[in-house]
């Protein structure tokens, strides 16, 4: 018996070493992924600031960013291109974290604000405000945010049956998404052509025409929301184990889910109010990040970085890479990337229907 105890103690000692080895391996992988994503983001940022009708070399770019550029360089980089870059960066991160939260809390890769009609709700509310109530820019953005939160709350209440199942939330969300699309279609067919053209910005997300005031609003929103998300990430890790285990481990499952979903809806609302529904960024970022890490963690920071990279790349492609020099809103390109991913996810979903 004593020998057994001693052997167990030795084994446990080896275990501590094995555990810290596991942990540092996980950390190294996470660091590598973040560095690679950061490099990609930096590259795309430099490309977005340099490329265009008036291209600017790296040396000139650095000089201009340091405030030593010529008048025309200052105008092109600091006034035209930098706000667009910064807005894409913030919105991409907000959408990605929102999507990763929805997917993590509901334990379903289809649960993202764009699939569930949360961003659609924002579009519908914005277009309604603009076309029917005659709102101006700020009021339209505010109604977009209100629309996102309203739709998220409606789905939550409809899906509530004395408890919450992720699959029910997703099914009801998909239904709600169709309803808001129908409502949007109705609004647009009733509107006159010029107004409808204007309303298009709320149907397809775009970071063009970014103004520093928009950027400040998004940045302020993120500055408030992201620290709260970060503080609650531990609860998300427990919710991944299901309600029973989360409760057993001392996490108030229902309340934590409500709070995290609320934060996710607010993030989607802030981002949509600023750039419109940037299709599929929220949907693809989390799963890509989780796949890169492959360790079953929520991976919120890598998700945010993937979101930024996808948004910057989509916007760059939309501006510069299309044949015939046509320029499109970034949301069309991100949608073109996201839709095949959705099909792939559905095709490879395992038998439980939960997917990767």
């Amino acid at each position: 018996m004593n020998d057994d105890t001693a052997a167990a103690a030795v084994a446990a000692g080896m275990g501590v070493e094995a555990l810290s080895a596991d942990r540092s391996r996980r950390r190294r992988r996470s660091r590598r992924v973040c560095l690679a994503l950061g490099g990609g983001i930096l590259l795309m940022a430099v490309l977005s600031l340099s490329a265009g009708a008036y291209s600017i070399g790296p040396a000139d770019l650095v000089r201009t960013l340091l405030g030593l550029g010529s008048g025309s360089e200052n105008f092109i980089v600091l006034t035209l291109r930098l706000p667009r870059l910064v807005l894409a960066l913030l919105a991409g991160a907000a959408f990605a974290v929102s999507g990763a939260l929805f997917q993590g809390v509901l334990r379903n890769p289809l649960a993202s604000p764009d699939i569930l009609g949360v961003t659609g709700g924002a579009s519908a509310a914005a277009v309604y405000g603009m076309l029917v109530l005659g709102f101006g820019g700020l009021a339209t953005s505010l109604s977009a945010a209100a629309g996102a939160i309203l739709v998220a709350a409606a789905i939550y209440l409809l899906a509530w049956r004395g408890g919450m199942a992720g699959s029910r939330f997703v099914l009801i969300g998909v239904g709600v998404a169709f309803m808001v699309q129908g409502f949007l279609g109705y609004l647009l067919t009733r509107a006159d052509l010029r107004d409808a053209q204007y309303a298009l910005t709320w149907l397809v997300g775009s970071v063009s025409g970014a103004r520093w005031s928009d950027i400040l609003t998004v940045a302020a929103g993120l500055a408030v929301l992201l620290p709260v998300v970060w503080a609650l990430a531990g609860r998300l890790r427990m919710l991944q184990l299901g309600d029973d285990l989360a409760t057993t481990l001392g996490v108030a499952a229902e309340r934590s889910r409500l709070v995290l979903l609320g934060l996710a809806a607010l993030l989607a609302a802030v981002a949509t109010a600023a750039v419109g529904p940037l299709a599929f960024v929220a949907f693809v970022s989390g799963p890509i990040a989780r796949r890169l890490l492959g360790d079953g963690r929520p991976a919120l920071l890598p998700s945010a970085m993937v979101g930024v990279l996808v948004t910057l790349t989509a916007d760059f492609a939309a501006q510069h890479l299309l044949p015939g020099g046509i320029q499109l809103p970034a949301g069309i390109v991100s949608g073109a990337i996201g839709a095949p991913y959705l099909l792939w996810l559905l095709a490879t979903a395992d038998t439980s229907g939960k997917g990767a």
Partner: protein
Amino acid sequence: MPPSPPVPHTLAAVGLSLGYDSRRIIDDLDLELPSGRITVIVGANASGKSTLLRGLARLLRPESGVVLLDGDDLFGLPGKRVATVVGLLPQHPVAPAGISVSDLVGRGRHPHQGWFGRWSGTDDAVVSAALAATDTLELSARRLEDLSGGQRQRVWIAMALAQDTDILLLDEPTTFLDVAHQLEVLDLLHERNRGEGTTIAMVLHDLNLAARYADHLVVLREGRILAQGDPRDVLTAAVVLDAFGLSARIIDDPVSGTPLIVPIGRFHDNHPRIS
């Protein structure tokens, strides 16, 4: 290992009724888990075994009555504090795809960590002891989904052990395991109980294993306790017939001396009772 408390924790149900929506599953039930002993709950399908366990683990709010932890209403206590005393392994636990064994078992430490979940040396020691006790140390870097059923169940139990509670509830910890792995898991729990004095309550389907491992056997029928006590006193042909609608002969288990239930069924009773 933190020293075990001088006074063992107690968990008891008083006039407990539990149900879902308006369907009542557990009806006005009184039960006190003997501290430091192994209690096994048996009963036919839908007799309320899992529901009772969920009620004892604070997963289901009573419709009436209370569950008392050390004399205090379980629902009046902060969840995180309860989680340091009472642990539960559900019948079908879920984990995110790709999670490693060490990460999963480590999450069992959550109730002992502060707001930001800072990992400490104690956490490492407890997790590593839990892995060693369940013989899963070599698996610690593997992914849960790559393991066999028996290995996976041992890892889940390691997580429950890492939570380091004085009271451990398990809902059918042996389902989906072959008979050798069933015994392995039950031996492991027995060892934990005798070694650390952990109070264990679990639901089991196999009456013979229940009789062998239980210090205290609880037989449920339709949400009420039909009989409880030492398995030798409780498991009679009459109780088995009453609880399961099954005719059986009870003999002594030649290995453990505990009752051994030999079910009769409709076709095989070729050896009429000699009495």
